[in-house]
């Protein structure tokens, strides 16, 4: 009974965090006029963290005004701090502004901001909360005695990984750049591809403690407004202390939390994001990760690689069909093998049956257990391969090949046919261009093996029906996951199982994009043609 009661207790758990999430009252406080008091508060709040640098200076003609500069060491560009902030404050303005201040009675803070400081981005802050946000994301804080205001001077700079080739999604033909961990670099990479004034970005800060920057990116007028609105709603609903990777966001906003299938696409390739934006999808960029989320995501999208659109259409179509086939293999191959060899031997041609039987002679386990053993071994090897240091990778592949391949068969523990099946399954699962759909299948495969071992092909059929029902029932931001297959849309078939040449694709995907569906005008001139002979 306890299992079912959990639903109720869950509600009370979700009620608790709001108390903790309430922002620390001190942070809400406004800045005081006294510089010393402000600095004391800041020091107290930050717990005397050693990477926060406090520098008290005196500015003005006679050095009569006390000012404080605070920055986070490592996140701030110290050269520009010296050249454009300290130098300005301590040398350049000595003469000018004091008189002005006396004569006009103007605010020294806005005076500095408007006239003196040679830095692009400067914000005035009045609350401690904003001050901390700026300070801890690398801004330099300038406080002046006598003013309950401060300046956030943006001169962030920190060490980061540059734009490198994507690791998880590689191509033979296509751009080699991949996203990096820096949000601004990432948005720039997309901007460079789409120079449209309608490419809009809306930013959010999520995570009460990590204060992670998030950008929502879409092409206004192409993207579906309802989806944009829905996305905002879902993102605003998040109340959590930290977002460390876009995967955190994905889990918190996805449509069907229990489905093994991903309803949000992710990529580390700017060209994929650009293509998605052009189709009317919406990108979510999260600071600190090269993986960008794309919504809405459809089932077929996970079988489309960016390279499909750069290669010739015929080979792309073939490869795409191959991927769908491989999906089927990686989902069903072991299950079908178990079902046919333990329940439906009649289906095998006699020569094959005899050959399979010969291999099974002396194998101590039932086919199901044998398959389970091999699949688990493979999963272990695979996981080990991902986690372990690169340098011992070759050692493991030798052991793996020996354990799985040769030794198990020679010892007569496993039949050779099973090794073939498991290997085919493994290779087929690597064919999918996106990792997400491949891992969705990993768990389902075991389910199908269980069904096959208990009910044979009947079980597999029932499992497949259930799977298809499930796939048809889930949605990604309101768009049916299986579209354009269910609901069927004839015009979107141009880019589903096959890809038609670019000159035949005139419209954007129908369901994602309700407005502005035309991509290419004038269907007659789109097809390339040799020049006509003029006499």
């Amino acid at each position, binding site marked *: 009974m306890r299992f079912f009661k959990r639903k109720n207790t869950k509600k009370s758990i979700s009620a608790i965090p709001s108390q903790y999430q309430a922002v620390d009252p001190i942070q809400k406080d406004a800045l005081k006029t006294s510089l010393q008091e402000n600095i004391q508060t800041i020091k107290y709040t930050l717990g005397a963290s050693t990477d926060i640098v406090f520098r008290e200076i005196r500015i003005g003609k006679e050095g009569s005004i006390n000012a404080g500069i605070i920055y986070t060491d490592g996140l701030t560009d110290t050269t520009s701090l010296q050249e454009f902030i300290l130098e300005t404050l301590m040398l350049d303005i000595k003469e000018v502004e004091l008189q002005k201040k006396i004569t006009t009675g103007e605010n020294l803070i806005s005076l500095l901001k408007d006239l003196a400081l040679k830095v692009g981005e400067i914000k005035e802050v009045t609350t401690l909360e904003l001050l901390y946000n700026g300070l801890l994301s690398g801004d330099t804080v300038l406080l002046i005695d006598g003013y309950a205001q401060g300046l956030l001077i943006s001169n962030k700079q920190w060490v980061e990984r540059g734009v490198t080739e994507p690791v998880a999604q590689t191509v033979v033909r296509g751009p080699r750049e991949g996203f990096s961990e820096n949000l601004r670099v990432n948005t720039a990479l997309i901007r460079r591809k789409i120079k449209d004034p309608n490419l809009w970005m809306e930013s959010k800060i999520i995570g009460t403690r990590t204060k992670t920057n998030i950008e929502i990116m879409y092409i206004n007028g192409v993207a579906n407004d309802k989806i944009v609105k829905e996305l905002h709603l879902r993102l605003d609903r998040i109340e959590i202390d930290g977002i460390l990777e876009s995967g955190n966001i994905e889990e918190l906003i996805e449509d069907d939390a229990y489905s093994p299938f991903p309803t949000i696409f992710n990529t580390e390739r700017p060209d994929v994001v650009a293509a998605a934006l052009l189709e009317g999808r919406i990108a979510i960029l999260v600071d600190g990760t090269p993986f960008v989320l794309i919504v809405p995501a459809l089932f077929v999208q996970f079988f489309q690689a960016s390279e499909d659109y750069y290669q010739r259409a015929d080979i792309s179509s073939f490869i795409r069909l191959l991927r769908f086939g491989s999906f089927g293999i990686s989902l069903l191959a072991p299950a079908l093998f178990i079902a046919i060899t333990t329940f439906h031997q009649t289906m095998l041609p006699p020569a094959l049956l005899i050959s399979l039987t010969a291999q099974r002679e002396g194998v101590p386990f039932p*086919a199901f257990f044998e398959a389970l053993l091999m699949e688990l071994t493979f999963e272990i090897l695979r996981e080990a391969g991902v986690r372990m240091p690169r340098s011992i990778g070759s050692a493991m592949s030798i052991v793996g090949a020996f354990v799985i391949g040769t030794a198990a068969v020679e010892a007569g523990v496993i039949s050779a046919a099973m090794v073939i099946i498991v290997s085919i399954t493994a290779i087929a699962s690597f064919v999918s261009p996106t990792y997400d759909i491949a891992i969705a299948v990993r768990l389902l495969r075991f389910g199908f093996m269980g069904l096959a071992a208990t*009910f044979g092909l009947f079980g597999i059929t029932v499992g497949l029906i259930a799977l298809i029902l499930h796939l048809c029932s889930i949605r990604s931001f309101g768009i049916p996951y299986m579209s354009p297959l269910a609901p069927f849309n004839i015009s979107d078939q141009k880019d589903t199982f096959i890809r038609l040449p670019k000159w035949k694709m005139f419209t954007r995907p129908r369901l994602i994009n309700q407005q502005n569906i035309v991509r290419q005008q004038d269907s007659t001139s789109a097809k390339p043609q040799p020049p006509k002979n003029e006499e």
Partner: protein
Amino acid sequence: MKRHMIVLLILSLFLTGCWDKRELNELAITVAMGIDKVEDEFQLTAQVVVPSEVSMKQSSGRSPVTLFQAKGETVYEALRKMTISSPRKIYPGHLRMLVIGEELAQEGIGESLELLSRDWELRSDFYVVVAKDKTAAEILNVSTPIESIPANKMFNTLKTSENSWSATKGITLDDLISDLISDGQNPVLSGIYITGNEESGSSKQNVESITPSAQILYDYLAVFNKDKLVGWLTERESIGYNYITNSIKTTVTSVSCPEKGKASIEVIQFKSDMKGKINKGEPEVDVNIQVEGNVGSVECHINLKEPVTIEELEKIYEKEVKESIDQTIETAQKQYKTDIFGFGQAIHRSNPKTWKKIKEQWDEKFTDMVVNVEVDLKLRRTGTVNKSFLKSLQE
């Protein structure tokens, strides 16, 4: 509580699973079965594959198949009883051959086929043959070269000979049963027999020499009246039978040359048309055979460049084939008195009303009905030479 129950119910489904699960190495793959009648009991012989001997890798030189035998009052009883000698349960799903002993065939094969047509495990695409002068068990006890599994050898031999020689006929269980139950048609089955020293046939040495001391081969068609074997057709008559029933794919027929010597005609296209009719109240059947052929070899002095020669050859062929067909019909009518050609069915198709009247006395009507056979050969090609080198050889 309700959801709890549903989960329990779903889980209990899994408890029922697996009951008909069989691992591959729990099967005794039976490729051929023989049925004999021994002292009022059915004697069932199963030729079972020894998988490890068939696979190239693990073979240790023992026989690739083994025989299990059991007797029972019914075939099914005998089949189950076989487990007293077999370590695994007989799995007949991949049966290729069913061999029926001659003695049983003479007594009637109906009862013994009932199980095989009823059991779900059996595919009905296996061939049924009759062991000539032997019991089925003896036939299954011969080892064969090339195809290490004797059942496969029997299956493939029958298939190839049916396709390219046409004196045999591969009849599957389905065909046989449909022939048995239809009016105006009696079944035939290919006959299988052993030549040579059958004592040594079962040992591995049989296939170790270049010429096996015992060999299995097909010849003759077994003629049935209803489900009882009544006699055998000769090779020539067997081909005649296939001519009439349109079951020739290709074959080679030798004909006499206008003068002395022989020539052979290769049949490449064949169509035989059987039409029933009632002539003055009596049933009659027209058999119209259209053959296209090539001149296969010429072992006499004729000049193929002359169209006349070709025509002459065609005439001779037509005459000789018609003779052999007439001979076949006469054998069936006079000697065995059984309508194996399906003439009754032809009448049934053309004159259903009359058929209803004469159905009961069909056996008598058949024996003296008129059959008009017409053969028409068209020779198409004469091979790569016009003039046989034999002529130059003699000059």
